[in-house]
């Protein structure tokens, strides 16, 4: 990456930055014992359950594992479809 590209924040991220994000991801998965495949399964199941009761924006659902120090949490972000259009008035 050239000096100017870096100066203006363009181009590919540095390999050190990429390494940090990859390390963060593998550590998160290793510590929680959760593989990407399991996360996908969880996501599908969560969508199925919530959809019975609410109108879920399926394409925007994100299920991730986050770390705080060495503690892991499963975080599900489940946006709901805009209800205004369907509201009875």
């Amino acid at each position: 990456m050239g000096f100017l590209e870096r100066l203006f924040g363009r181009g590919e991220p540095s390999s050190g930055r990429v390494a940090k994000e990859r390390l963060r991801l593998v550590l998160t998965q290793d510590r929680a014992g959760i593989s990407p495949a399991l996360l996908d399964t969880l996501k599908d199941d969560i969508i199925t359950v919530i959809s019975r009761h609410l109108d879920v924006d399926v394409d925007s659902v994100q299920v991730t594992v986050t770390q705080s120090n060495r503690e892991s949490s499963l975080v599900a972000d489940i946006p709901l479809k805009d209800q205004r259009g369907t509201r009875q008035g």
Partner: protein
Amino acid sequence: MAEDNTDTRVVTITSGKGGVGKTTLTANLGVALAMRGQRVVVIDADVGLRNLDVMLGLENRIVYDLVDVIEERCRLRQAVVRHKHLSKLFLLPAAQTRDKTAVGVQDMLGICAELVKDHDVILIDSPAGIERGFRYAIAPANEVLIVTNPEVPAARDADRVIGLIEAEEKGPARLVINRIKPKLVERGEMLSIADVVELLAIDLIGVVPEDQDVLIAANRGQPLAVSPDGSLAGHAFHNIARRMLGEDVPFQPLREPGVFERFLRFVSPGVNASPRRI
């Protein structure tokens, strides 16, 4: 007969991944601690892949080894070899022609219980991996140092080991980041010290820069810490030893500042090269 020394520190040096510099660190820390007046014994726990003897230049002095002691072919005292120049540094070598099934947790506990009587610090050079050799190497520890390199595979394996050590309740492990290349970090092409510490979330006790002097010293069988003058890695080993002994040693810059940086600091003293310092 020496009195029982209940303050003896039993420090296991481990990493998960092989080839990150465990044996080099053990040899150099042993030297640095002995030079500071500590009575040190280093144990090579890598049975079948003996190397600490070579690192310390003692390969021609070995008569008996760890497994000879365990199988009662000799007494512990007979297997422990004194360093050629440092009167307070001793080595208990590994067996070369046996494998790790020859050693068990109880064997290591028994040997360390004997060695604490005459030493202030016991350093145990753990084998790579997380299997039997790792288990018996950490069993006697009351402190653990984790060695890693600033690379994804090494850091990932270190994290696994940190988890296992926490589960064993060995007290908080402390981290040594070995073979950092300051120029690569500056260019953004290597994980920085701050990155590794943040993600592994354990205390840092030392940073050792990549330094060809480590290899050159090892070639001669004389660890760099014996005469660290002018070598950043040699100083880094001594700094780790000092921190182990409770001194508050600030983390040093990993290389001398260049002319441009000195100029920048001169015109703007608040700007410090913090990413390189830690």
